[in-house]
Each structure stands twice: as structure tokens, then as C-alpha cells.
């Protein structure tokens, strides 16, 4: 049994690494297809052709594509993410603090959305087929397709400008206490919460319904266990397991959705970093930022799969067949 788990985990890790390599290739190709040459983009239209060529030479962008890819990837492997064209400084000095700030915002969103959507999904499942179920399901689905900037501007209009209960920007003044920082992050977190709610609630609902319909729940009910014991011990324990996986896979989305939210709320996280890098044609920054998002997603799904395997011994048994 132990061997099987180890074998599975190794295979899963190998798969993630392969995906990562492919991802880096895709990002690199997209980065190289980018039109215009970086030297021209940095120096502007008035610079002489010779200055542009000299700069391109220094930046190393006129080498062959495999050579460029190799130096990029081996640089990353050694912890060198490249040099930002825009700031003429190592990408890592911007990327890591930005990623940290984004994770803070994402954490606030998760702390709100996970309990909320699980309760929503379970309540919907318990009222299956009734109006409440339909309302929760349809509202969740509708909210999850409204773009973050649409709900964001409505929230700003209502809560920050109309009622004046929350700040308009996401960044608290420097040196603020943690509760103040969190207060500034609540409004930007809500558009993310609205998107994620429908999806997680849908999974929690499906898992709960499946558990409610199972033989073991019927047995538990028939042998006279109180309703809440059946719910806690038999229904929730089984229905929430798949929800873990879903929550983890949403991390990737969450980091991506940050591009919009951070732009809207003027928050210097990884989303806005990528956005600015794209508008400035700062390829090393853009490529590193997008790769970072991909890595966060791959890590999150890896952790989810491992957690799921460890929490669910039955999978190992199934596998043995």
C-alpha cells in the first residue's frame, strides 16, 4: 500500500513537471511572437536604428530562439528570473513582493468564500428541488459569470462612494495594523468571492446530494441516529472531500482574476504587475509573472491531489484491483 501511494505521488509529480515544461514553452513562444523589438519599445520611435540594435544585442534578444529559451529556463532554474526591460532591475525584486501581496488578497477572499459557499451548497442540497435550492444554484451560477470588474465597480459605487463604509483603494497606508490592512482588502476580495461562490457551492451541493442518496446514510438514518449526527459523521465528511480538490484548483483562477481586480482597485500585486508588463512590452517580467501564476496553479492542484489521496484511504484500495 505504501509503495502504491509513493508510486502514485511520484507519477503525479512527474506529470506536473512535464506540464510545467510545456507551459514554459508556450509562454516563451507567446513572449517571442510579441511584435516589435524590445530595443525599439524601450528606446522609443526617435532612437536611431544603431542604438536599438545595440540594445537588442545587450538584451540578447537577437540570438536564436532555442538559445534564448535555454538561457531563460536555465536562469529560472538557478533562481534568476531575468532582468526587467522597464526597470533595468532583476524581475525577482518586483515579482516576489507582488506575489506576496496577491496571496494576501487571495487569502482574504478564500477565508470569506470557503465557509460561505460550503454552507450555501449544503443548504441547497438539503432543500433539493425546492425554491431555495433553485435560487442558490441560479444566483451562484449567474454571479460566477459576471466579470470581476462589473461587480467591482458596482461595489465601489455602493459601499465605498455611496455608503462610505469601506475604502476605495486596496492598499492600506504604510505601517497600518493587520486589521486595517484586512479592512482595505475586503472590498477587492468580494468580486473574487462572487465568482468562486457559485462554483464551490455547486460542488458542495453535488457532493452532499450524492452522500444523502447513499445506502450508508439510509442505514445510519434507519438505525435511529439523530439527524445532526448523520449529517456530521456521514454526509458532510464524505461530501466535503471532493470540495477540497475543487477549492485548490480555483487558486489558479483566483490569481488570474487578480489581474482585473488589482487593476481596478490599484493594488500592486502580481495581476497588476503582469498587466503593466504587458502594456509596457516588458517581456521578461510578463513571462516570469505568467509562469508564476502557472506554477501556483500546478502546486495547488498537486497539493489537492496529495491531500485527497492521503485523506481518502479507499482510493488506494480501489487502485489495487
Amino acid at each position, binding site marked *: 500500500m505504501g509503495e502504491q501511494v509513493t508510486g502514485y505521488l511520484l507519477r503525479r509529480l512527474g506529470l506536473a513537471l512535464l506540464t*510545467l515544461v510545456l*507551459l514554459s514553452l508556450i509562454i516563451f513562444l507567446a513572449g517571442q511572437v510579441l511584435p516589435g523589438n524590445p530595443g525599439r519599445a524601450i528606446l522609443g520611435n526617435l532612437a536611431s536604428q544603431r542604438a536599438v540594435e545595440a540594445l537588442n544585442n545587450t538584451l540578447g534578444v537577437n540570438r536564436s530562439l532555442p538559445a534564448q529559451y535555454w538561457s531563460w529556463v536555465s536562469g529560472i532554474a538557478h533562481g534568476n528570473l531575468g532582468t526587467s526591460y522597464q526597470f533595468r532591475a532583476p524581475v525577482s525584486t518586483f515579482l516576489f513582493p507582488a506575489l506576496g501581496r496577491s496571496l494576501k488578497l487571495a487569502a482574504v477572499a478564500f477565508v470569506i468564500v470557503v465557509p460561505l459557499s460550503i454552507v450555501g451548497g449544503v443548504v441547497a442540497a438539503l432543500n433539493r428541488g425546492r425554491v431555495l435550492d433553485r435560487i442558490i444554484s441560479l444566483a451562484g451560477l449567474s454571479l460566477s*459569470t459576471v*466579470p470581476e470588474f462589473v461587480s467591482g465597480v458596482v461595489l465601489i459605487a455602493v459601499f465605498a462612494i455611496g455608503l462610505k463604509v469601506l475604502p476605495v483603494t486596496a492598499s492600506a497606508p504604510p505601517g497600518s495594523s493587520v486589521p486595517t490592512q484586512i479592512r482595505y482588502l475586503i472590498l477587492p476580495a468580494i468580486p473574487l468571492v462572487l465568482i468562486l461562490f457559485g462554483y464551490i457551492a455547486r460542488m458542495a451541493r453535488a457532493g452532499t446530494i450524492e*452522500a444523502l442518496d447513499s445506502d450508508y446514510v439510509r442505514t445510519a438514518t434507519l438505525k435511529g441516529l439523530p439527524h445532526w449526527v448523520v449529517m456530521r459523521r456521514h454526509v458532510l465528511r464524505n461530501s466535503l472531500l471532493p470540495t477540497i*480538490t475543487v477549492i485548490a484548483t480555483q487558486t489558479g483562477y483566483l490569481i*488570474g482574476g487578480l489581474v482585473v481586480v488589482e487593476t481596478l482597485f490599484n493594488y500592486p500585486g502580481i495581476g497588476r504587475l503582469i498587466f503593466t508588463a504587458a502594456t509596457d512590452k516588458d517581456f521578461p517580467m510578463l513571462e516570469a509573472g505568467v509562469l508564476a501564476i502557472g506554477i501556483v*496553479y500546478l502546486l495547488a492542484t498537486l497539493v489537492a491531489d496529495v491531500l485527497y489521496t492521503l485523506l481518502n484511504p479507499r482510493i488506494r484500495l480501489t487502485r489495487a484491483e
Partner: protein
Amino acid sequence: MADDQHRESVAAPPATGTTDGHGPAPHDPLAAGSPPATAGAVTGALDLPAGRIRREHLAQLVRSAPFIIGAVLLLWWIVCAIFGRSFSPYNPVNGNILKNNLPPSGAHWFGTDSLGRDMLSRVIVGARNILIIAPLATLLGTAVGTVVGLVQGYFRGVVDIVVGRIVDAMLALPVVIVAFLFVVAVGPSTLTLILVIGFVFALLIARTVRTAVLQERELDYIAAARLRNESSAHIMFVEILPNVSGPILVEFTVRLGYAIFTVATLSFLGFGVQPPTPDWGADIASNYGYLSAGYWWETLFPALAIASLVVAVILIADSIESVFIQ
């Protein structure tokens, strides 16, 4: 209906031991061998039963309230997209600068923006671009995705593995980021948006179609067709395709909702339709700075327009899905 029953037994999860008091796992990462869910906001229902579109489905749809609400809203925006220019009360592009930032009134129901342009007219005419780009991108994605998924699911083998890996790698990035990366790469234009969004959706749709095809190909009618010595193309497009049309239709409508989401987001970020052409996302981007000055109407009405359009499409998608799932 016999084949429906057969299909159900194929689709049913493998029975696992329940002696330990736990139910079968709805999501088994081992069985999938890859990340179990798709990335990002773009997440369709993946566990769809295979099915053919039938006339009863239509009859059921017409009786569902969410479907009717969604259809009426969508129809309204389609009318705006096609005829908007002829019935919008003012010129949406040229405003009267002396009448800028006017709040909603009898003359300007939705007020005017900072350049004195009538917001109602801009909202009406702004439906056009998004309703050209999103459906075309979704159509392209569905067509390409269906072919790729059919080939992947029918032939399996190397093609399946290679395409599957590429799809996994792409799915590690949210759709908006992929679209964003490629639109920056080739410059924003209507055609670029259609191609980029269509390409990403093709990967997602291929995955769903592949799953449906994998179930179909084990059925007897495929074996029979092989014995009749039909060509692979005939089996894929004439035998299998009609039987997976249900999931494809569901995918199409769900993706349409997310295409609208993506197009609107890209315009908001400045990678979509360029000003002064009326566009909801771009209008919000240029007007939300005035929110703190109290000019809420310049942002709120385009925002409501986007919300109503995506919700309309999602109501339709959900109704279609529930008709097929029962």
C-alpha cells in the same frame, strides 16, 4: 431507449467498496490522472451524459421560466446589436461637450459621459462588438474543439496523449491570462480576439467531447459500423457526432457566457475594441475614475448591460443543461 440505459451503465462510476461506511468518490484523481477540474472561471459541467438533441428537449425548454427570461434578454441585446444605430436616441460617438456629466433625466435616460455623449445610446450600440466577437469565437472554438475531441477520443493513442498534455499545460493558466498574453503578442483587433478566444475554448471543448466520445466508442453500434467497414471519418462524424450533440450544445452555450465574460474583461483592460467605438467594457474602464466625483451613471449602466447579457446566456445554458441531465 435501450441505448440510453446502456449509456447510463457505462457512465456510472465504478462500484467501490462501501464496507468502511464511505460512499464512492465522485472525484477520483487517480482515475483521471490529471488535474481533476479545469482552470479558472471558465469551468463547464464536465460530467455530462452523452446524448442526442431531441424534439422533447425543445418542448421542455420552452416551458422553463429561466430559459424564457434568458431568451428575451438575449433577444433584446441582439436587436440592439443589429439595429441599435437606427433607434438609439442620440449619436453614440459624437457628444455635446457642453452637456457633459449630466445625471439621468427625461432627455438623457442614462445621463451623459464626460464628453457629453448620451449613455443610453452608447449602451444600446455597445452591444454590437461583444455580440459579434463572443459568438464567433465560441462557434470557432466549438467547431475546432469538436473535431479535435472526436479525433482524440476515437483514435486515442499518441495524438490523444500529446493533445491532452498541451491542454493540461494551457489549463494551468486562467483563460483571461492566456487570451491576454496572445492578444498582447499579436495586437488587439476583432479578428485576434475571435481567434485567441476560439483557440483556448477549442482546447476546453475538445476535452468534453473526448470524454463523451470515449463512452460512445465502446457501444455496439460502433462495433457494427466497423464490421460494415465504414471509414473512420464516417464513424466519427456520421455515427458518433449526432450522439454527442447534447454535450456539445451545452458546452457551446456555457462557453458563450464565458466568451462574453472574456471579451468584456479584455476590453476593460484595454485589449479589446478601441475608443471611440461604444463598448461596455471600454466605457467602464474610461468612466470608473469618475465614480468618486459622483457620476455613477457613466459606469453603472454599461456594467448592468454586461451583467444582464452574461446572466441571460447562463440562464439559457443552465436550462439546456438541466434538460439534458435529468
